[in-house]
């Protein structure tokens, strides 16, 4: 590693923070929207279920780069105003994450046994209370591990924002490479940054799983009854 790259490492570390922020925001929006879509998938009203299904299938079938291009270059033409690279990237990441999260949350809610809903209903709980106190806490444990996967995917996908000119980790790495006269070292550093970030997310995820007792035997009991 040459000296000039070392001097740029703090810049890359700062850019790593930007990438984390971008993907975290995308994930957060994705969870909120995804939860809504998952609830629609469970709706009594058939057209709403269809709408939610089409939404999910649509966004997970379109490459994220195309969504980014569409948001970035399409917004001025279709909406009449510009979207910043940051907004366009966040939007694309959130749409993509929401499709994945919708599926994860739907499956997690489906894993809560019918007996659980019945016991809570029989006790007089409202639909909201059943969700809040009985179903959601159990679904959370099921949803947590795959959600960590979505976070990691989103972080990796956020590198695509470099293509529409948003200066996050990848773009910074490429600029550093130009400034240091090319070579593989900046790319290696870039890869190392992504690896460390994602590995940290994995570890945090495992810690969270322990905190919420994911995989403890009691979860199997809940799934059975």
């Amino acid at each position, binding site marked *: 590693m040459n000296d000039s790259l070392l001097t740029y490492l703090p810049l890359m570390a700062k850019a790593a923070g930007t990438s984390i922020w971008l993907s975290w925001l995308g994930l957060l929006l994705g969870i909120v929207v995804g939860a809504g879509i998952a609830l629609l998938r469970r709706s009594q009203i058939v057209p709403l279920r269809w709408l939610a299904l089409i939404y999910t299938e649509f966004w997970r079938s379109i490459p994220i780069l195309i969504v980014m291009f569409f948001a970035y270059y399409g917004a001025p033409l279709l909406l009449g105003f510009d979207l910043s690279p940051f907004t366009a990237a966040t939007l694309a990441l959130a749409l993509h994450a929401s499709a994945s999260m919708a599926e994860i949350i739907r499956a997690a809610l489906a894993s809560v046994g019918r007996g659980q809903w019945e*016991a809570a209903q*029989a*006790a*007089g*709980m409202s639909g909201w209370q059943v969700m809040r106190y009985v179903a959601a*806490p*159990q679904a959370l444990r099921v949803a947590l591990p795959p959600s960590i996967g979505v976070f990691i995917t989103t972080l990796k996908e956020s590198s695509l924002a470099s293509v529409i000119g948003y200066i996050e980790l990848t773009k910074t790495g490429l600029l550093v490479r130009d400034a240091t006269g090319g070579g593989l070292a900046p790319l290696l550093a870039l890869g190392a940054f992504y690896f460390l970030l994602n590995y940290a997310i994995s570890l945090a995820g495992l810690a969270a799983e322990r905190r919420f007792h994911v995989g*403890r035997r009691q979860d199997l*009991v809940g799934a*059975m009854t």
Partner: protein
Amino acid sequence: MTTPILEFDNVVKRFGARTVLNGISLSVVPGEIVCFIGPSGTGKSTLLRCVNGLETIQGGEIRFDGEPVRGGHRSITAVRKRVGMIFQHFNLYPHLTALQNVMLAPMIVHKEQREIVEKRARGLFERVRLSHRIDAYPAELSGGEQQRVAIARALCAEPRLLAFDEPTSALDPETVGEVLAVMRDLAAEGRTMLVVTHEIRFAADVGTRMVFMDEGKIVEDGDPRQMVAAASSERARQFLGRVNH
């Protein structure tokens, strides 16, 4: 004549084309312990689940405390607050401790104060002889213990009627006794109970009334001891003869 707490008036329940309850009429007064017996798949559990609207009915009417029970309707909550249900598979909330399981509904449905609910809950754990297991999670409890927690959970909401849906069917023979013992205590207190069970001896000992069902109909309804000794219908005699020997 006491006014009935629960009335079934020509109730019909269908699952698709299959008729599960075919014109059930029944009236239960406070203090009665009605045991429902009969072959599997004859609608005993379904009948119980209609009481608190877990199933909606297609014909007839069910009244609880004189008020019509309508599954899926907002008013069903009022009935559910007064009916405690115990399930075959316990259905304890696996993410909550035994104590939290018992306290949840009184706090969030009945909006009672935590201190009052906790005091009552601790008393109930004593009654079901599980004070030492109060902080255990359901997965750490045996089947018999889980079912006793489930009974405490139902009792903590101070229901007017207890509905037991095959409470011992998922238990091994050794732990059946501990659950039945708790149920005997409740019966001795004069609680109103509906019990769907295959425990004929329990039904004969503890029940004040036995209802024999077959193919969605009530075939016979009478005194448990008399029915076990000499049922008047051929079908009930057949069934009771088979389980007795």
